[in-house]
């Protein structure tokens, strides 16, 4: 059932680039990444692609295929008709390094701003006791393979680079939620979620959830519950009175100094 697929692939670097046309053989059962590899091995040895596991586990091969953010290794060629021309471009939100490879360092910088897991100091390794139902939610978020497709898709930063300072993006707001819902974490990141990570910018459009290859319910299970918790925090009369008594008795945890 082999056929030749017509591809338009964005070639270029930070300076300039354009779509280039290729015809590449496609065999039964192949994914887009296979076809890009064949192109690389036969016609364009220097075509830049980022990939690693080829099994949807590492989150390296994010790109836009016919305008849709996807993992190239998990996109089967059979979802397109043989006549269709495939247009393959790099993720739009991040600066291009070369061809289909983008500079995703924004995400690593955001990760460093979030106060890390903070267990009670008296619990020693080996002493943690947590019930499965209490860790289910954090585990859902920890399925994240950091493909950054949600970051790429969220309209708050997709066409608004000016928001990048104030908004951590769905992946990292979800990281905040993951820690807040971790049964053994005692820090309180609600205030900084709003003030430093821009939870308020999210208007729950769910575009991030739609593109997540891990099918994590980012909006419903992480962002909306975080918004509810933040509201609870802001109108907590005790907090308003300036009391130190917050959830679990901890103080607000500040954003990490020097993290930016």
């Amino acid at each position: 059932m082999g056929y030749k697929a017509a591809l338009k692939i964005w070639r270029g670097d930070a300076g300039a680039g354009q779509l280039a046309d290729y015809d590449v053989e496609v065999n039964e059962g192949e994914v887009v990444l296979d076809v890009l590899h064949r192109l690389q091995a036969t016609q364009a040895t220097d075509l830049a692609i980022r990939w690693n596991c080829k099994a949807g586990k590492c989150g390296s091969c994010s790109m836009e295929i016919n305008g849709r953010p996807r993992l190239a290794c998990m996109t089967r060629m059979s979802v397109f008709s043989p006549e269709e021309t495939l247009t393959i471009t790099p993720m739009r939100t991040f600066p291009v390094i070369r061809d289909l490879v983008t500079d995703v360092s924004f995400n690593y910088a955001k990760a460093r701003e979030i106060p890390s897991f903070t267990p009670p100091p008296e619990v020693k390794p080996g002493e943690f006791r947590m019930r499965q139902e209490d860790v289910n939610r954090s585990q859902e978020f920890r399925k994240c393979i950091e493909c950054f497709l949600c970051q790429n898709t969220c309209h708050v930063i997709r066409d608004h680079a000016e928001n990048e300072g104030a908004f951590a993006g769905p992946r990292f707001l979800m990281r905040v939620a993951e820690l807040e819902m971790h049964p053994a974490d005692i820090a309180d990141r609600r205030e900084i979620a709003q003030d430093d990570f821009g939870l308020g910018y999210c208007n729950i459009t769910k575009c991030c959830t739609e593109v997540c290859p891990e099918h994590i319910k980012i909006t419903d299970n992480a962002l909306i519950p975080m918004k509810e918790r933040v509201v609870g925090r802001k109108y907590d009369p005790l907090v308003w009175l300036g009391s130190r008594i917050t959830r679990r008795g901890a103080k607000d945890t500040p954003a990490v100094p020097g993290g930016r």
Partner: protein
Amino acid sequence: MTDEIKRYSYDVVVIGAGGSGLRAAIEARLQGKKTAVISKSLFGKAHTVMAEGGCAAAMGNRNPRDNWQVHFRDTMRGGKFLNNWRMAELHAKEAPDRVWELEAWGAVFDRTADGKISQRNFGGHEYPRLAHVGDRTGLEIIRTLQQKVVALQQEDAVEFGDPEAMIKVFAETTITELLSGDGRIAGAFGYFRDTGQFVLFETPAVVLATGGIGKTYKVTSNSWEYTGDGHALALRAGAKLLNMEFVQLHPTGMVWPPSVRGLLVTESVRGDGGVLRNSEGKRFMFSYVPDVFRPQYAETEEEADRWYADPDNNRRPPELLPRDEVARSINSEVKAGRGSPHGGVFLDVSTRLPADEIMRRLPSMHHQFKELADVDITKEPMEVGPTCHYVMGGVEVDPDTGAASVPGLFAVGEVSGGMHGSNRLGGNSLSDLLVFGRRAGLGAAEYVTALASRPAVPEAAVSAAAAVAAEPLERPEGENPYAIQGELQVIMHDLVGLIRRESEMKTALVELDKLRARAAQVSVGGGRAYNPGWHVALDLRNMMVVAECVAQAALERQESRGGHTRDDYPGMSPEWRKVNLVCSLEPSGPSGAVSLRRQPTPAMRTDLLELFDLAELKKYMTDEELAGLPGATETSAEGTH
């Protein structure tokens, strides 16, 4: 700009950001050393991310009878007693602490009913022992270590005003050469993938944590990173590789469609109840239980099925034999014409567990088969066959510190050798990464502390490394590196694969010789910036020398053991158990001049030998070796068949 070499200076440089590299780097930083972590891929995407089933540690959460001695025994049996016993001992003793430590750093493992870390069954492990998170345990481990690095950087930001003051990650950076001064490690040379600029890390201590060699084979579960870089770097720096003939073929890789051939199907499928059947519907593994394992494995399907619920009173199903046994059995079934339509056998969980249970325990397997093969594993069986998975051979190291024979060089994780003997048990790699990652980090830190002076990097060596790295780009004409890589993979797969023969391996060595000459003449188009063709050309140099080591060692070892099966020497020989095969490079020869030497295996401590029945030891060891043990002489007639 690309002509200028960027220079950094560190106390410890860790090459590799998988589980072992990150754990080593964390330890070096905790010891107060200024540490760099280097990785070919992005931070958090190293190969460890692909590990599925779990991490073995005798915590005894599901069966209180488990302890380090039982884990040690299982590990030695799995490796057919060729393991470095000291490594196996340290590993079994320290794995629980390393897992608990991860939990304190934020890992969220699956739980038991009483809130502890859950543990699952796996091939070769007597009790449920693998800490796990569904079937994405590697992701959890790498993410936890990544986040621990970040936590340390946050501390450093407070203390030094710079998060990268004490530990910095150089992602998408490839090391092509280690540099020495006065016979000691002095630095590491490489390039940044994004710009192609060269970089020199001046450092007295290098920890190799580069993973495996799977990309030298055509059908593999491994990714592009696994080109044996660390193995080759160590050789060129003067270190030795141990027992490179032992390459693990995982019994269950996907066989169809062709584009995913080799992709792993986790052993948890079998640990959780999945069974292997041939085209006649028969659970064929019952016919393949070798003598040494008979006492521990069920003889009937009924007993095997009872084992899942009542492991104390029943023996385990033969599907859970060590991997080498299962891989060979599948191979025999296919050869006998009882295979599945695409040349594998059937792995079925659909008739063994309810659909929702499959979805809960094996979500990523369900996803993988659904998305990539249109197979719903809750409704139909999978087709599976052997795939190149893991290399037991690797850099010879000191068990306690991870130090290689070259001062300042350390190795840990899949790139190191010895721990797993001739065959690794599933789940024993992730624990290996943590136990020896910490030890190598400590070892490197102590080495640096004890140094009176730091060796200088000779400038001539820097320019030489730069010249070698630039060659494929500068050569106006030559062969395509992808094509040569493809040929190499076919040679190894066809001639030094699962079942090996003298004549074929001799052919392989001849073919490798020819290919080496061509590999030295490849040329790539394009520039230095993110140019995969260039990257493949440079990796090829490492793959060639590693392939040579595997082929030479495989030809030399005239017996079958673990991940080395000889058609012409089908038996396991106690005499060969006493032999380690060691590869090194001839100091002055061309880069392919591998020399191979036999070296005696270290004698096991008596208290460890006494953990086994004498009758069992006699299946593996010679009478002289056992002479010192009580009762050794009386029973000498038993168990030697």
